[in-house]
C-alpha cells in the first residue's frame, strides 16, 4: 500500500475499534489507537502472510504482547482479510468468540493468546528460536506497551533473545507515555529506553509511530539487523485520531458514552473521507463497508 492508503486503512481501523469498544461498553481504545499506524503498516506492507492460509508454518508471526489492544489488532486483521468486518460486532460479547484480550484458537490470524502483560515477548522469543532451529526464514514481530515493559519478564526475554542471536525477532515498543494510573514517567520511570535495550544486546531503532516514512524505514532497518534482535522504539500519541482521547490516560480502558461515541465517529468519518481523497479513492465507496457494520443508535450502551 502507498502511505496515504495505509493512513486511510488505519483510520478505518480506528473507527471500527471505537465502535467495538462502544458496543461492548468496555475495552482499551487509548493504547489501541496509538498502535494503529504501526500495526497497519506491519500487516499491510511488512509481514509475509496469507489470510487464506493463516496456519502456514512458514508465515511471519505477530504477538500482541500488549494483549489488551485488541481494538487495534482485530480491525487490522479484519481489514487484512482474515475475517469479515461484521465479526467485530461480537467483541467482548458472550454471544461470540471475540475475547477481550487476544486469543489464538478462535480468531483467525492471532498467533498467540496474550493479555497478561510481559508474557507475549517471551512467546515471540520461543517462536523465533523455533524458526532458527528449523532453518526457516520467517520473522517474528511483537508489540509491547511502554507501561508493559515495567514487567521484569520483558527484560528476562530481552536477555534471552540476545543470547540466542535472534535477528529474526523484532519488538516494537509503543511509547505513548501513559498508563492506567497516569504518566509512565511518574508511575515508573523507564528512560533511557534506547540505552537500556542497547545494553541488553538489541539493535535499537527510533521512530515516530505515526509517520509512515519513519515506520517503513524502521521495519526495513529491523529486517537488515544481523546477529541480534531489533527493537523499534516508536513514539506515539495515546488515543491518536480521536480528539478528546489524545494524550489522556483516562482513555486507557474506558468506553465512550453515546455523545462521545458519535463525536469520535464523526471525527474519524471525516478523516476517512479526507484520506480517501488524498489516496485517490472514492470517499463514499471507502466508508460504506465500514459504516455498514457500525452500531445504530439502538445498539451499544
Amino acid at each position: 500500500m502507498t502511505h496515504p492508503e495505509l493512513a486511510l486503512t488505519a483510520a478505518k481501523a480506528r473507527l471500527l475499534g471505537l465502535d467495538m469498544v462502544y458496543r461492548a461498553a468496555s475495552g482499551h481504545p487509548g493504547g489501541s489507537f496509538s498502535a494503529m499506524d504501526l500495526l497497519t503498516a506491519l500487516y499491510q506492507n511488512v509481514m509475509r502472510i496469507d489470510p487464506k492460509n493463516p496456519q502456514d508454518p512458514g508465515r511471519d508471526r505477530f504477538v500482541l504482547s500488549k494483549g489488551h489492544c485488541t481494538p487495534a489488532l482485530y480491525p487490522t486483521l479484519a481489514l487484512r482479510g482474515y475475517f469479515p468486518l461484521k465479526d467485530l460486532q461480537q467483541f467482548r460479547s458472550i454471544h461470540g468468540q471475540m475475547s477481550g484480550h487476544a486469543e489464538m484458537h478462535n480468531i483467525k490470524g492471532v498467533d498467540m493468546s496474550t493479555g497478561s502483560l510481559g508474557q507475549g515477548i517471551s512467546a515471540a522469543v520461543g517462536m523465533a528460536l523455533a524458526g532458527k532451529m528449523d532453518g526457516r526464514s520467517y520473522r517474528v514481530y511483537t508489540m509491547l506497551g511502554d507501561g508493559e515493559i515495567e514487567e521484569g519478564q520483558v527484560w528476562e526475554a530481552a536477555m534471552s533473545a540476545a543470547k540466542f542471536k535472534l535477528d529474526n525477532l523484532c519488538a516494537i515498543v509503543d511509547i505513548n507515555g501513559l498508563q492506567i494510573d497516569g504518566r509512565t514517567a511518574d508511575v515508573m520511570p523507564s528512560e533511557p529506553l534506547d540505552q537500556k535495550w542497547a545494553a541488553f544486546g538489541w539493535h535499537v531503532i527510533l521512530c515516530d509511530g505515526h509517520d509512515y516514512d519513519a515506520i517503513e524505514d524502521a521495519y526495513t532497518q529491523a529486517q537488515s539487523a544481523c546477529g541480534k534482535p531489533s527493537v523499534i522504539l516508536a513514539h506515539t500519541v495515546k488515543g491518536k485520531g480521536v480528539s478528546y482521547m489524545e494524550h489522556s490516560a483516562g482513555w486507557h480502558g474506558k468506553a465512550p458514552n453515546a455523545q462521545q461515541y458519535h463525536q469520535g465517529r464523526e471525527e474519524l468519518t471525516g478523516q476517512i473521507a479526507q484520506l480517501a481523497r488524498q489516496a485517490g479513492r472514492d470517499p463514499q465507496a471507502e466508508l460504506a463497508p465500514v459504516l455498514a457494520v457500525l452500531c445504530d443508535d439502538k445498539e451499544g450502551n
Partner: protein
Amino acid sequence: MSETIATRAAYGETMAALAKDYPDVVVLDADLSGSTMSKKFADVCPERFFNIGIAEANMAGIAAGLATCGKHPFLHSFAMFATGRAWEQVRNSIAYPRLNVKVIGSHGGLSVGEDGATHQCLEDYAIMRAIPGMLVVSPCDGPSMRLATKALLNYEGPAYMRLGRLAVESVTDEIPGYRFELGRGFQLREGGDVTVIATGMMVQEAVKASDTLKAQGVSVRVIDMATIKPLDEEIVLKAARETGAIVTSEEATVLGGLGSAVCECVAASCPVPVVRHGVQDQFGRSGAAKQVLAAYGLTADGIINSVHKVLAMKR
C-alpha cells in the same frame, strides 16, 4: 531387593534414551540442569537443549512460543519455581491456549531437606490442579517414572510432573501386571478394611504401613495414584464402596492436592470418612530429608496413625 533410584534420575535417563525417537522434543532449564537431570538430555542432544538462565517466567513463555511452532517443550526447574514462580505464565501462556508444554518440577516436597522452607514446594499439586485442563502427574519410583516419562512424551497438551530428589525404593516393579497409564491409579495391595491412596514417595510408606497393619489384623488396600488430575474416580469410588474408609497420603499440603481431590470425589458420589495425611497447613524447615519427613509425620507410622483415625470414624 529391588532398585533404589531417585525419580529425577530415572526421568533424566529416560529423556536421554528416548531423545532421538522424539525429534520435536525441546528441553529448557533455568540453571538447574544438573539437579533436575535435564542435563542428561542436553548431553545427548545439545542442539535441542536451551538454558534460559534463572528466569522461570521467561522460560515458560519461550516454551509456549516453541509449542505454537510445533515443538514439544519440556521445561525444568525445582517444583517451587516451575509451578510457583511461573504459575501465572503456566496458566496464561501455556494452559489457556492449550499448548503442548510439559512443566517438570524437580525436588518437590519436604524431601528437599536442608535447603528448607523456601525450596520445599508443598503446593505444586494444588496450584497446578487448579488450572483448567492441566494434567498433574506424580510417579512414586524409578520404574513408574520411566513409564510416566514415556507417556508424557506421547501425550499432547499441557501437563505437570513432579520429580523427587531422594533415592527411593521401587515398589511397582514387584507387582504382577503393573502398568502405568495417565489418569489411572493402580492397586498395589489388596485390602478390605480401609484404603490408603498415596502419591509420589508416600506410596512406599503406604506399602510399609499396609504390611505392618496386616500383621495387626487390619487389611489395608493401597493405591498408587500417580496421576492426581484427572483423578481416577473409578478406583476411588470402588475403594470407598468396598472398604468404607480412605486415607490419602502425599508429600504436600493437605489443602488442594490429592487429599482434596479424593474428598471432592467421594463427597459427590459415595461419602465415606477420609483422613488426609500430608503436611498440615505449615511451611517446611531445614534438616536432613529423612529427619524433616519424620518431623512432619510423613512416614509409615504417620500413615498408620491416620488409618487408626479413619477406622474410628468408620461406622
